């Protein structure tokens, strides 16, 4: 794969505004893209949020996607430590972490009575609250933002529940295009093992129980996660994900992540050994 994962999303930018020139990375190497792309693609998929200037956003957005049990949060902890040791300031974001509606979504999920469109829109409220009040200020200050899931999970979950993909892409057209999107791909069976070992049960939503796929929790989980995985395969092509084997060891996956991120940010050395505090994650 070429050094720019953004190439794959050129198709979607055709629907919105043309890519603006002059969007230059301020930190990292200002090298011209190898495959002769004249300019960096626009930072937004479609219309920019009102009042946001792309050229002010000097930081970087790095997204880690993958189902529960794919090792996302472990990798984000390790990457945060590594980046900080390299002198980069890191901010994180993730689902249901907004001050505005994070807790409300937790409440809705606990009740299991919310309908699909409402849930999808509550998640998008949660997303844009974090985008406007956490992500954009961080990028303006030149931080590295590590996103523990992004719009792709939200689109995939809503799409498998029958909400139109065009509709969903329309809502998220004001989202920022990540610099790098990694997909930690694991087979549903492996994800099941890991999740079950961790919490001795499988969550209602992660097994898609609201979709009446099967009364057997294992079957339901596998079917649901397979549907999500198919959506991700489609999204991966459309948005140029960097797909990683999430079944590899933590240290191996982390090595690949560091390599890709280092080359994007212009970090010369990628050696890393977790501190004592994080050594328990290193398997």
């Amino acid at each position, binding site marked *: 794969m070429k050094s720019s994962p953004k190439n794959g999303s050129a198709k979607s930018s055709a629907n919105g505004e043309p890519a603006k020139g002059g969007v230059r990375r301020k930190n990292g190497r200002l090298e011209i893209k190898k495959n002769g792309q004249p300019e960096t693609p626009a930072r937004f998929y*479609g*219309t920019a*949020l*009102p*009042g946001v200037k792309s050229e002010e956003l000097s930081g970087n957005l790095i997204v880690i996607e993958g189902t529960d049990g794919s090792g996302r949060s472990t990798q984000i902890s390790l990457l945060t430590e590594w980046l900080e040791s390299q002198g980069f300031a890191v901010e994180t974001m993730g689902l249901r972490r907004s*001050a*505005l*509606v994070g807790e*409300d979504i937790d409440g*809705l999920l606990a009740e299991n009575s*919310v*309908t*699909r*469109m*409402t849930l*999808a*829109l*509550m998640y*998008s*409220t949660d997303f*844009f*609250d974090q985008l*406007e*009040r956490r992500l954009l200020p961080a990028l303006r200050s030149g931080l590295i933002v590590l996103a523990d899931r992004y719009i792709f999970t939200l689109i995939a979950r809503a799409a498998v529940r029958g909400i139109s993909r065009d*509709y969903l892409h*329309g*809502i998220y*057209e*004001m989202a920022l295009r990540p610099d790098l999107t990694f997909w930690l791909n694991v087979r549903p069976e492996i994800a099941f093992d890991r999740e079950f070992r961790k919490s001795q049960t499988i969550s209602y939503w992660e097994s898609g129980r609201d979709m009446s796929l099967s009364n057997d929790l294992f079957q339901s989980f596998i079917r649901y996660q397979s549907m999500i995985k198919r959506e991700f395969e489609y999204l991966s092509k459309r948005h140029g994900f960097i797909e990683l084997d999430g079944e590899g060891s933590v240290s191996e996956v982390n090595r690949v992540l560091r390599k890709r991120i280092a080359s994007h940010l212009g970090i010369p050395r990628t050696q890393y050994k977790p501190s004592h505090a994080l050594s328990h994650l290193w398997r």
Partner: protein
Amino acid sequence: MGKREYPGALIVVEGIDGSGKSTQLYLLKRWLEIRGYRIHFTEWNSSPLVKSATRRGKQRRLLTPTTFSLLHAADFADRCERQIMPLLHGGYLVLADRYIYTAFARDAARGCSPHWLRNLYSFAPIPDITFYFRAPLDVAVDRIVAGRPKLKYYEAGMDLGISLDRAESFRIFQERILNNYDQMVNTDRFVLMDGTCRVNKLQKLMREILEERVNLDQFAPKKK
């Protein structure tokens, strides 16, 4: 937007604050209720679902034009999926005090992209009749300001930073909304109602239009 695949009917009133729409819909509702029709009345922003979030967002002033809009869309989706659609499929006459056009007019006045808003609400059923109550800005603003000691922060559009004076901010915000409504009269086939007419005269007209456009017999109480 979805095609009509249900036996019910959806009647909507729209207009800026103080245009008289709620009074008129109330009278229409009373008329239908007294006759025993199968009706349901629904209001904008009334679900308990997102009330706590809206309240928190307003109190702590967390809301941006985008999240303000999305939160109301989530609220509307809840009402749409759990009340409006099931009732339309069940053959009810649904009366809505404000509908998606409120979001189109108000959120666009806050700076949201009209194209993005249309997509956001594209799951909503199209009304059978949309009564648009239009009153001149001064009349509407006077009615509201006279009835309320203090205009609320978001209500007055203070988040837009148009003016530090609440009354002035409210007036400018309402003017923008009014202009946005006016632009939808043709594109969304509004029935224009003159909000300065006498209440009973306007109500008579509203009932006539309803009877003309909707077969009310289907909502009448079943004879035993």
